[in-house]
C-alpha cells in the first residue's frame, strides 16, 4: 500500500509555501523528509492530513484518491499524524489521550487490547496512565503522542520531528520503537532535524528547500551526497 502525493501547492494567504511537492510513502518502509527550518515540512504534513486545504495537487492512498476530504476521513483511511510539538491533550489523562487516539473505533472492544499493546511499547505510560498529560516530561509526552497515534491503527504514520528537544537517551528509546512499528508493517514518513539518523534508516529520502523537493534518493545515498553533508549533517 502506498500514499502518493503529487504536485502539492499550499499557500498561507498570498504566500505560497509549498510549490509543487511530490512524495511517495510505502507501507513497511521509512521515508525521510529533511529540510531546514521553515522549508515547509510541517506544512506538507498538515496538508496530507487534510488540515490545510490544497490549492493544487492530488493524493492517492491504496489506489483511491483522497481529495477534499475531511481530516477525520484521512485518519480513518489509515494515514495518521504525530504533530510537531507533540500536542497531547494536556488537561486529559494519559489514558484518555489514548482513548481519543482510537476515537473512530470508540465502541470497539479491541481498544482495550490496543492500550495494553502501546503500554508494552512504552511501559512508562502505563505508570502514568491516570496522570494529566500536561504533567508528563517532554520525552513522555512524545511517547504519548506516538502511542496515541498508534491507537488509530495507522497504515501510514506521519511523524513531525519526534526527537525535538529530547535527551539522546530518550531519542534512542523512541527510535527503537519506531523501528519496531515499521517492522510490523507500518509505513513511516519521518521529518527529522536529526538528519543523520533519519537518512540511515530511510529506504527513501527527500530533501526540501523553500517549498520544493530538491533532491531525493535512498537514504544511504543521500548520506554520501556532498550537498546534504554540508547542509544537514554539519560536515
Amino acid at each position, binding site marked *: 500500500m502506498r500514499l502518493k502525493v503529487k504536485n502539492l501547492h499550499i499557500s498561507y494567504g498570498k504566500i505560497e509555501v509549498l510549490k509543487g511537492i511530490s512524495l511517495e510513502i510505502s507501507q513497511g518502509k521509512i521515508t525521510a523528509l529533511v529540510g531546514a527550518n521553515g522549508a515547509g515540512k510541517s506544512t506538507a504534513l498538515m496538508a496530507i492530513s487534510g*488540515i490545510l486545504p490544497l490549492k493544487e495537487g492530488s493524493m492517492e492512498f491504496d489506489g483511491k484518491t483522497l481529495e477534499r476530504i475531511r481530516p477525520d476521513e484521512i485518519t480513518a483511511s489509515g494515514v495518521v*499524524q504525530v504533530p510537531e510539538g507533540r500536542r497531547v491533550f494536556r488537561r486529559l489523562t494519559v489514558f484518555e489521550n489514548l482513548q*481519543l487516539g482510537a476515537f473512530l473505533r470508540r465502541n470497539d472492544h479491541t481498544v482495550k487490547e490496543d492500550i495494553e499493546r502501546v503500554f508494552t511499547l512504552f511501559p512508562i505510560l502505563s505508570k502514568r496512565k491516570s496522570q494529566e498529560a500536561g504533567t508528563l516530561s517532554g520525552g513522555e509526552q512524545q511517547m504519548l503522542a506516538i502511542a496515541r497515534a498508534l491507537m488509530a491503527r495507522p497504515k501510514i504514520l506521519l511523524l513531525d520531528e519526534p526527537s525535538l528537544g529530547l535527551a539522546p537517551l530518550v531519542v534512542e528509546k523512541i527510535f527503537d520503537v519506531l523501528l519496531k512499528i515499521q517492522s510490523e508493517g507500518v509505513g513511516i514518513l519521518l521529518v527529522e532535524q536529526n538528519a543523520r539518523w533519519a537518512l540511515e534508516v530511510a529506504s527513501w529520502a527527500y530533501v526540501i528547500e523553500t517549498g520544493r523537493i530538491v533532491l531525493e534518493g535512498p537514504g544511504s545515498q543521500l548520506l554520501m551526497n556532498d550537498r546534504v553533508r554540508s547542509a544537514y549533517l554539519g560536515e
Partner: protein
Amino acid sequence: MSPLETFIQQLINGLVIGMIYALIALGYTMVYGIIQLINFAHGEIFITGAFIGLAVFGALPGALGLGNLWALVLMFALAMAGCGLLGVLIERVAYRPLRKSPRLACLITAIGVSFILQNVLMLIWGPVDKSFPVFFKHSALTFGAFRVTFMQSFIVISSLVMMLVLHFFIRRTMLGKALRAASEDMTAARLMGINVERIISVCFLIGSALGGAGGLMYGMYYNTITFHDGYLAGIKAFTAAVLGGIGNVPGAMLGGVALGMMEGLGAGYLSSEWKNVFAFLILIILLLRWPSGILGKFRHE
C-alpha cells in the same frame, strides 16, 4: 424572623435564581470553550425556551393542568428540544461560514443574530408581557421559619440533576472527552479523527437546551416574560460564566450560584431595585480585575 433566619431565607432565594443563571451560563461557557465566541444570541435562545414552554402549556389538554407533573415534564422537554435545535441552526447558518474569519466578524454576527431573534420573538408573541401560570400554587415546604415553595425546590433539584448529567457526559463519555480535547487543541483533535464541526454542534445543542430549561424556569419563577427579557438575564448569566472563568464548565455552575446568592442578599438587605446593578458591577470589576475568572480559565497553554 430572626436576622439569621432572614439571612438564610435570602440565601435560599439566591440559590434558586442562581441555579437558573448557572443553567444559562453553561450555554455561554460551552460555546466559548470550544470556539472562543461570546454567543450574544444565547440570551434570545434561552428566553425562547420560556415562550415554547408557555405555548406547550396552552396546547395541553385540560387533564394536564396546573399541578400535574407531566405537564411540566412535557413543557421542559419541548422547550429544551426546541432551543437545542435553534442553537444548532444558528451555529450552522450564522457562525460556521465565518469559522476562518476574524473573531470580530463572528462577534458582530452574534449581536446581529440576537437582534433578529428578539424581533422574531416580538413578532410571534407580541410586545407585551406574557404571564405564566403558577404551578403547584399552594404547595410549599416549611422548615421552621423557612419557606421553600414547590417551584423553588423543583428548580433547584431539576437543575442540579441536569448539571450532574452534563458533568458525567463531559467527564466520562467518549463524546465528552472529544469535546474537552477539541476545546484544548482543535487541530490535534482533528488529527485524532474527531469531526470537530460535529462537536461544535453538540456544544450548541447542549448549551442551548440547558439554556431553554433555564429560560423556562426563569419565566415560571418570575411569572411573566417579554421578548427582551433574554437580554438582561443573558448579561447576568454571562457574568456568572465570567465569574467562574469563561470556558470552565464547573465554574459556570458555581458562578451562577454565587451570583444568585449575591443578588439575593443584595436584594434582601439593600434594595431589590438595586439587584440588577450588582450583576453589572460584578461584571465590570471582574473584567477589570480578574478577566479569566475566579477559578481561572480552561484553556490550553
